[in-house]
């Protein structure tokens, strides 16, 4: 077929006429009219999209992936996020982007013998991380378990009665910050990854909202923003981390980050500070004198669903 490519179209005009100079008939006019009507109808049908697009900035649309942002880019992005939080929520907030430190690997342990299932940690997480008030979201779910069994099928996360019940024990579950995180592998756009200090984070401005990570997580640790979070201005926690507790956009994934905006600045996670029984132990796994290392060395710890090979950094133990 290539040999005809360059040749002049000898007498092409003659039969071109049969194709091109078709009379502009009534039917053609009707077709064009119907086509325009169809386009207009689709325009109307999709009108909510244009209104929605107006609430998004071009800067956000064109923003690069977190790892590709220069410090100057990051400063501009943070300024935009702060301004948008002021505009949309009426709250003055400070967004920081504290990086992971060398020589730090965060680990968490939880003493199941002393946890009483009071859900103070759940509430602290809800407030600290600027969760949607309407859904009462939190990264922590506490399971009320039958004594004598670790079978979650017999657990209940929706209990509503005084605690602790005598024949029960309580097992809070949040992101296990796996060393081999299935949620990270499945993400098609690298919007979630494991930081150098072991925390699995999400770039809320890069996530496309496919929820593959939510399907992949064996611990039900991920949450999706099914709608724009609602928080009264007075209740917004102004101390915000770019990769952690800043108010998330609609339609993206979020998860527990071990409160990295606190822990990377030497503070403890909000859930730990809220715990009235001291069941929670948090620290640097690389520091031999840390409490978490003492727990790992002296208690018989276990992790959830070890057989899946996810290698959690969240350990559970019993005292007595």
């Amino acid at each position, binding site marked *: *077929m290539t040999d*005809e*490519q360059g040749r*002049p179209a*000898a*007498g*092409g005009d*003659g*039969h*071109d006429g*049969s*194709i091109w100079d*078709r009379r502009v008939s009534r*039917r053609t006019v009707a*077709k064009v009219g119907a*086509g325009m009507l*169809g386009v207009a*109808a*689709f325009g109307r*049908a*999709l*009108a*909510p*999209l244009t209104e*929605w*697009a107006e609430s*998004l900035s071009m800067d956000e649309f064109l923003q690069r*992936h977190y790892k590709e942002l220069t410090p100057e880019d990051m400063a501009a992005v943070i300024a935009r996020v702060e301004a948008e939080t002021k505009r949309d929520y009426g709250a003055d907030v400070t967004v920081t982007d504290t990086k992971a430190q060398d020589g730090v690997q965060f680990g968490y342990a939880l003493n199941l013998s002393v946890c009483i299932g009071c859900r103070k940690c759940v509430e602290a997480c809800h407030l600290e991380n600027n969760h949607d008030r309407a859904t009462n979201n939190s990264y922590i779910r506490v*399971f009320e378990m039958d004594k004598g069994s670790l*079978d979650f*099928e017999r*657990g209940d*996360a929706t209990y509503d009665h005084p605690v602790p019940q005598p024949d029960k024990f309580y097992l809070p579950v949040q992101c296990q910050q796996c060393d081999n995180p*299935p949620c990270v*592998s*499945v993400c*098609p*756009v*690298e919007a979630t990854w494991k930081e150098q200090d072991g925390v699995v984070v999400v770039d809320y401005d890069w996530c*496309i*909202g*496919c*929820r*593959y990570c*939510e*399907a*992949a*997580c*064996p*611990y*039900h640790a*991920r949450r*999706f*923003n*099914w*709608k*724009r979070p609602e928080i009264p201005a007075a209740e917004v926690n102004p101390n915000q981390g770019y990769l952690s507790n800043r108010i998330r956009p609609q*339609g*993206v994934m979020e998860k527990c980050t071990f409160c990295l905006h606190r822990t990377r600045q030497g503070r403890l996670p909000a859930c730990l500070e809220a715990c009235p029984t001291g069941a929670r132990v948090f620290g640097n796994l690389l520091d031999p004198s840390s409490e978490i290392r003492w727990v790992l060395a002296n208690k018989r710890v276990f992790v959830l669903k070890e057989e*899946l090979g996810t290698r959690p950094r969240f350990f559970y133990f019993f005292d007595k």
Partner: protein
Amino acid sequence: MNPTKPTPVHATPHRVSYPAFLWRLASLATDGKLPFYAWMTLLTALTLVGANAWAHQVAGGMHVTGMSDHVSWGLYIANFTFMVGVAAGGVLMVIPAYLYRDKKMHDVVIFGELVAVAAIVMALAFVVVDLGRPDRFWHMLPGIGRFNWPVSMLTWDVIVLNGYLFLNLHILGYLLYTRFLGKPPDPRWYKPFVILSIVWAISIHTVTAFLYSGLGGRPFWNTALLAPRFLASAFVSGPAFLILMLYAIRRFTPFKVEDGPIHTLVKIVRVTAILNVFLLLSEVFTAFYTGGTHSASATYLFFGLHGHDALVPWIWTAIALNVTAAILFLGRRALTHPLVLGAACVMTFVGVWIEKGMGLITPAFVPSTMHELVEYAPSLAEWKITVGIWALGLMVLTVAIKVAIPVLTGQVTYTGAPAPARADAPEPAAAAARAEEAGMSR
């Protein structure tokens, strides 16, 4: 038609004849009688309803769906999975036509490829409407965004689905264009792509199965049998749809569809329908004989769990439909009574849609990974969007068949003169068959 003497086609450069080809297709696509316009208007109206519901979903958030953090995939991903199967099923016309050189199948194979295109368009649309942030779709484009290949199976799926779409568009476009020009197609320009499309068809459903079966946290999906099951069910729903479509073409268009290809498809589906039921039984045995926590999803699906039983009527309906259809296919009347065959096709199409859709996606989330029982039912918005995408797919298919038939039968050509028909092979792809034989005998 054209009083002037036709100029030899080979004298015209493609830059002239190809736009003419597209222009003719566009005018064919919009020409028709009243029933055609009524059908297209209906489909457009349904698509508009879906488009509007989707716009509201994107703007207001996906809380308008019935999904939750416990059941985070629902009707969209169910339909996506099913449509990938239908697209892959088209290959069951390509294999007899090209590998077994079934001449009669060769005449209608192009319709199988048209179905593949429409099904892939639908599958991709179902993924797009499942995204919370479709405006960030460009994040997935290789080179511009960050494409997590080869680790994420979803990136594999993006590659194979788009690849399959382009393969089929190329094959279809090339064969129709050469037919339009009245030239025999050059095997070098489509033969390798046809062979590739056979392998590729298997790959799209394999990769789609791997999306699910690779997730260790969801025992219901985490089975090596998933990909074979996907293919088996695709090779049931695909031919079932193709048979129904060939009936429709025979009924509503001047195109002559012979019994040969339909019978070939019946013979295929006789085996695959039984295979599909067999593979389901194998899953059921393993789940229930082993018991324990891993059977929780299967228990929920088939019998209900702790009083939650939303899927039970669905799955038993699917099983009843699939088993009845398998029996009907086996009977002699499947070949002699179009009504029996049509009924069997409709039954198994619906049966597989339930089984591969709601019966496969939802139970993996119920109970959740931490064994919480939260049920799922699609919301009105999800149904609207789903119906809209089905209407869109049928629109693509209708238009594709509408433009393909006059070109295939030689009624619409570049010169305006009817293309010569071949005596040995009754109609359309006869030229293709001839060219192929030449290529094969080399």
